[in-house]
């Protein structure tokens, strides 16, 4: 038996690291989680949760989004391809109801996050024999049924109710990620339909309703998929609990005690509560909400550092709620009063952005925001696009009072149409992971060399500077490469390398955050969202839980043979003055026959100021090379520097990185020449002078040599040429009979030629030549 424990921070995504299960190379595919039974974990108890899935052999790590003590009971270690796994999950009493997530890892990788409920209602399994009203399954209320949809065959449940008894019912399915679109009918004993529940403005496909029993008796609840699609799952909660759409306001200020109300189709009688949202995290806070029966409804609460301005329910049409920017304008739209107004003072030239928050927080509203000036003239309005949460941006044209008009786009209103508009005034940005097939949010990596890339995109609101990307993770040791979105750019490919000590099977969670790079402007950081990837994986769930959005899961793999080699025979390159360019050639060798065509990404790192790099690919296959071409000014000062390079490529989902050691970068002249007379030159006689040439680059060309000046009465050849393979030459100088004896201190040779196609010319250091009398 393997015991895995965790001790996690409250209301934050948490990491559990498995211990001591070895690091054997995986011989099987990564695990999958399909569903759990029961479908919920109960606060204040230890819930034995059976996880159903595939490849659940030898689990190593488990991660949960909620604070819990978790013990995995993997069963027979020798059994292969196990499809169930028992987890004993102990939740603290009072843990709020809501939706959490669990993921497990084995030495072969990590599962996706399985969504489960945290729920106080007792769980009951669908007995599978309830496909007719006559065989309807008895339900003791309150209860939550974990069921599976049988497609064209419906599930039937029977319950008893007294006349006038209020029974609330909600199906939690798409909110748990299930592809189940419920249609619910309540029938009387004779089979007559008393109520039908289908889509809900706020919960989407998840039907919810209040049934008031017309008489004492037995009633049958029929549940099926709108499309008759099989395979979906659901948790049917039925009892007497509030059906909460959102808190009111749906955002509170962190660190400030805020009185909270609730809105939804059945929220009357819920006593307001005051909440103190903790500082730090901007993730949604789960809340249990209880009515008079004590049975819990549930919702989530957003938090912010900004002040909240809540529209008063008592406000009259056309009356504006006083507010200020930056701040959060919150309220609820009514069917008979479909427009709320907030008034604030603005200063000319102030950039403002109003981010609407509705559907991602559980509201059904899609807002239309309009910025009006004091005269009521529209200054700007939010764009209408595919997003449900538009952003209005504007620069205030003058000093004065402004009003923000908030309407529902289709003029809907009522308990399901709460909203918040976050008014920001300073430059800021948002980050998201590019929504394409190459962007993955779950990775299995070998330590140190395993890597993945993320195409991080930003949407800028008045901020044009660079954005530094970092990792927010309880796990240390992550290495990031190319982690700055350049100024004015909107995307960068970020590389993340697994920690050197990432153990096989270890499961780690991380988020990418961005900070303004060196500008000192707010915000302190912004987390990258992965909404696009989550929607692609679960189209039926357009708004994943807030804690899941941006979450990246990485599990450790045992050491893997690399599918490529990268080599260079250099540890040093010369950057030639006057040429202004040099290169380093990397030889790329594909060692796995299945690894084809995918190019290598090479990032030169640590280049000295003024030198830029360009990487050129040459060939494809056995003779593939990459040249790092360094370019800089021709008059760069001589000196010694060092740089490194980072290389990454992936075969399938297996990303692998190479980091070089330091490579010396010498800034030198392209040629060097020394002058060495064989001895003094006697008047009337001759003497040899040796010239030695050093070529610094790889380009070996003929070089012309000459002396800059001769001593008086001394003559020699005007120019001598060294062939491409010559390094040195002796030149004979002659002193005339009347040459004056002198010690000539400035004998300087000049070497001229072409290097890398560029004309270069260098002088030797001056040497002395003594002219002696005979």
């Amino acid at each position, binding site marked *: 038996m393997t015991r895995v424990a965790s001790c996690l921070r409250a209301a934050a995504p948490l990491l559990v690291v498995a211990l001591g299960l070895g690091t054997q190379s995986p011989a099987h595919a990564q695990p999958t989680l399909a569903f759990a039974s029961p479908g919920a974990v109960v606060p204040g108890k230890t819930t034995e949760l059976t996880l159903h899935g595939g490849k659940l052999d030898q689990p190593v790590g488990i991660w949960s989004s909620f604070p819990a003590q978790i013990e995995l009971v993997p069963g027979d270690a020798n059994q292969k391809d196990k499809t169930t796994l028992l987890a004993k999950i102990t939740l603290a009493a009072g843990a709020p109801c809501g939706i959490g997530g669990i993921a497990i890892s084995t030495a072969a990788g990590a599962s996706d996050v399985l969504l489960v409920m945290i729920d106080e209602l007792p769980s009951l399994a669908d007995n599978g024999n309830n496909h007719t009203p006559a065989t309807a399954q008895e339900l003791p209320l309150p209860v939550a049924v974990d069921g599976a949809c049988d497609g064209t065959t419906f599930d039937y449940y029977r319950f008893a109710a007294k006349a006038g008894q209020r029974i609330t019912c909600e199906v939690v399915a798409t909110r748990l990620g299930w592809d189940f679109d419920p249609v619910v009918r309540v029938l009387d004993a004779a089979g007559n339909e008393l109520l039908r529940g289908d*889509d809900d403005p706020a919960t989407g496909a998840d039907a919810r309703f209040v049934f008031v029993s017309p008489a004492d008796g037995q009633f049958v609840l029929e549940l099926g998929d709108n499309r008759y699609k099989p395979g979906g799952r659901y948790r049917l909660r039925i009892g007497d609990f509030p059906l909460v759409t959102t808190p009111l306001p749906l955002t509170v200020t962190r660190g400030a005690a805020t009185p909270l109300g609730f809105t939804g189709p059945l929220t009357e009688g819920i006593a307001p509560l005051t909440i103190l949202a903790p500082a730090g995290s901007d993730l949604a806070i789960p809340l249990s909400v209880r009515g008079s029966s004590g049975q819990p409804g549930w919702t989530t609460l957003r938090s912010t550092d900004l002040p909240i301005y809540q529209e008063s329910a008592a406000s009259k049409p056309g009356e504006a709620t006083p507010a200020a920017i930056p701040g959060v304008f919150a309220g609820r739209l009514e069917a008979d009063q479909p427009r709320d107004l907030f008034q604030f003072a603005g200063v000319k030239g102030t950039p403002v952005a109003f981010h609407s928050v509705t559907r991602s927080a559980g509201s059904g509203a899609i807002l239309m925001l309009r910025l009006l000036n004091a005269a009521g003239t529209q200054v700007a309005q939010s764009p209408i696009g595919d*997003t449900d949460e538009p952003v209005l941006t504007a620069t205030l044209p003058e000093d004065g009072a402004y009003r923000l008009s908030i309407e529902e786009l289709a003029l809907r209103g009522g308990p399901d149409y709460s909203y918040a508009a976050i008014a920001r005034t300073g430059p800021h940005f948002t980050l998201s992971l590019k929504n394409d097939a190459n962007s993955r949010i779950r990775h299995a990596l070998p330590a140190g060399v395993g890597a993945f890339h993320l195409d991080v995109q930003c949407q800028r609101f008045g901020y044009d500077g660079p954005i530094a990307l970092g990792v927010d993770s309880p796990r240390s040791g992550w290495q990031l490469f190319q982690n700055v979105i350049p100024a004015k750019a909107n995307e960068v490919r970020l590389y993340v390398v697994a920690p050197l000590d990432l153990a096989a099977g270890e499961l780690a969670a991380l988020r990418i955050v961005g900070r303004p790079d060196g500008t000192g402007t707010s915000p302190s950081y912004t987390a990258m969202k992965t909404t696009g990837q989550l929607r692609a994986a679960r189209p039926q769930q357009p708004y994943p839980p807030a804690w899941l959005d941006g979450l990246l899961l990485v599990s450790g793999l045992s050491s893997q043979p690399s599918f490529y080699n990268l080599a260079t025979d250099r540890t040093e390159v010369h950057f030639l003055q006057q040429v202004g360019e040099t290169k380093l050639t990397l030889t790329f060798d594909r060692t796995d026959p299945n690894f084809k065509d995918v190019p290598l990404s090479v990032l030169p790192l640590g280049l000295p100021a003024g030198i830029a790099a360009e990487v050129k690919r040459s060939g494809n296959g056995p003779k593939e090379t990459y040249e790092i071409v360094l370019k800089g000014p021709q008059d760069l000062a001589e000196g010694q520097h060092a740089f490194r390079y980072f290389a990454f490529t992936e075969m399938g989902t297996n990303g692998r990185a190479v980091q070089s050691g330091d490579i010396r970068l010498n800034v030198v002249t392209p040629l060097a020449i020394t002058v060495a007379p064989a001895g003094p030159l006697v008047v009337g006689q001759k003497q040899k002078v040796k010239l030695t040439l050093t070529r610094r680059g790889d380009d070996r060309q003929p070089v012309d040599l000459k002396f800059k000046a001769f001593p008086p009465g001394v003559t020699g050849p005007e120019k001598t040429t060294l062939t491409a393979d010559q390094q040195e030459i002796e030149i004979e100088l002659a002193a005339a009979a009347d040459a004056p004896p002198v010690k000539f201190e400035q004998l300087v040779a000049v070497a001229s030629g072409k290097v890398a196609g560029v004309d270069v010319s260098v002088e030797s250091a001056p040497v002395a030549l003594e002219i002696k009398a005979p």
Partner: protein
Amino acid sequence: MKHRQIQKPLRSRETTLSLIRVRSVFHPWLLFLASLAVVTSARGDEPGLEPIDVGQPTRLEVFPPAVKLAGPRSQMHLVVTGHYADGSVQDLTRVAQFATSSAAVATVELGVALPHQDGGAEIVVAAGGQEAKLPVEASSFGTPRPISFEWETLAALSKQSCNSGACHGSPSGKGGFRLSLRAFDAAFDALTLIREDLGRRTNPLDPDESLLLAKPMMKLPHGGGLKLKKSDAAYAVLRQWIAEGCQADPDGAVRCVKIEVYPPSGRVLKRPAHTQQLCVLGHFSDGSVRDVTDLAYCTSSDNQVADVTPDGLVIGHDRGEAAIIVKYMEHVESCFLTFVKDIPGFVWNDPPTANYVDEHVHAKLRQLQYVPSGLCSDEEFLRRVHLDVVGQLPTIEATQAFLADASADKRSRLIAELLERPEHAKFWALKWGDLLRLTSTQIGGSGVYKYHRWLERAFETNMPYDQFAAELISASGSTLDNPAANFYRTATDTLDSVESVSQVFLGARLQCAKCHNHPFERWTQDNYYGMAAFFNRVQRKKSPRADELLVYMADSGEVTQPRTGKQMKPWLPGKGEIDPPAGADRRDPFVAWLTAKDNALVAKVEANRLWSQVLGRGIVDPPDDFRDSNPPSNAALLDALAKDFAEHGFDRKHLLRVILNSRTYQADFRANDLNKDDAKYFSHYQPRLLSAEQLLDAICATTDLPEAFAGLPAGTKATQLPAPDLAKHEFLKIFGQPERQTVCACERAGDSNLGMAIQFFNGPLIYGKLRDANNRFRKLLAAGKPNEEIITELYLAAVCRKPADKEMQASLAHIAAKGDQVVALEDIAWAILNTNEFLFQH
């Protein structure tokens, strides 16, 4: 037939007295008038027309009662009506005699008053011993008036159909000469006729050499053949216009604002009174009224009943009703006439009536001298009403129980019961699914089920039709939690919305008016875009939620008429332009108008649709094609149904109950000698082929082998499919299941074809069901039932009756002859399925 020209110098001047061939009794006074030889003129009975029996009218009525002739080219058609003691009327124009008190001022030629100089006179009209007098005032005789380009030249081209869709009015014109369709775009036509090709089509120096005249008169080759003769009124107009230099109308020129047609609708003409002269008056923007009969384009809605000549003489051919559509420029009016004749052997048998439906139907039948068939048998009624109300055959048990029931009210009880069956909602959701284009392709795999369920629920709860229409047309929000909003998903843009709303709820096919004024109907291009102004602010937005579309209203946006560039105000039929409050949903006033109790149109359209669903033919037919040229076959009946519908809160079940309980619905499909020619007036039930879905369900019911549709619950019937593309079925396609690409009910094919026959001869579905070991007769065989019982069950299941002795004997003989009981029963079942009695609703 003689043709007159309106140009005075060209008008025939010969005395027409010699042409008068009247059978009326010549009154001495009339002879006196004739002897005065002032100028007397009449059309006279013309060759091919049945002579009029003038008889003894009690009075004459002449239209117009006073004549004003302004200008030398003015004229006025006179229409003379004889009123008789029995309340009947007949048109005496062609036999009346006309005399004038001053031939110098005005004369009457061929029933047309013509001026000769300014002044006053009196015209005396005589026929059948009666006379009528009318004053004539001629003015401006000496003031020449140039030919109007718009309301004379273009009207003349329209009259000759030069600018029809088949000729130069087609989008690409003909022979390099293109005119706007039916002169809807005068500016374009002015450019074409006056400026294009350097004016080579006209020659003011020698008008008769103009291509515009020479080609239609076939002086030069003309692809369209002979279209113009010198005797045509249009010739004189066109020639004069050319001679005057081909002038366009000056700015501010008077325009025709409306036309008036005499006689008004409703006249009943009993043979031999089978003709009716029309007079078409144009009312102009300067207040003047002109006779435009010669340039108005007239057509008949039913050429078998009546035709109309170019000069406005309606000639009845057979008993029945016809609307004469009169079009002059963009103005359209109609004159609805009924033609009656005595049918040998006709005696009204005064059949009983069950309700007002029968009263109206019988009144029409009596007027047209058709004798209705008797009631259908209980077996036929049972099968018919099941197919109409729930789309399926009754079970054998239901059939036996009904046939055994001796109570007098069993038919009405069955109707009531069927209307409350859940299958009724499902079956009628199928019908509306066709109109609302329910397909998963257009609505999405999730939305299509929700929209279908919304439809089913509307019928389950018997949602009042005005509410039903309002919920669809006013729908906003998410298409998933408000499925009615899918109306604007299938109607993908403004123009699609206009056309869908008008066809589904107004019964009007507006597509033509998108590009030009409707060639034959009242709808103009301005009307089309005025209607569009109600819907152009409807916007659609995608959402991150799969299948969801958000329908909302933009707070601004106007419609521009593409031809005129004019910004259009919302326009309502019969009301004109309106100014909705700023910021309001513009659909609201449209829905308010549509569903107003005093707006009979929407009630008529739906009442007619309900009628056509159960009678197989609309009172207006096709049921979504209400137009002047397609009048109701029994207007009083349609009015009564619509009134009842509105008075009962647009309760569709109520109206169905009324119709289904009528003897008209329950009539025998067998015609008698005195109604066998009738296909319009509901004198007997019209058998029709079962729809594709009904037929498949009927085969399944007969063989007791339900069809399984993949992805849908067991027991789902073909008549309950949410959308054709959810469960594609070859049999259904062959038998005309529509793709639901349009809002037109016509998309459901009703004709039979070879593929259908092959399916029933040896198609895989029939073959498979007959060979299936679990089919009805094999199970009965396995249970040891005798042949007689098996054969009886097959008949009861398929055609709701027991086999006749002859059928039983033939079947038993076949079994005996075949030697193989199973194969023989297969043959018998196959034969039953191939009978018309099975294939048709009868």
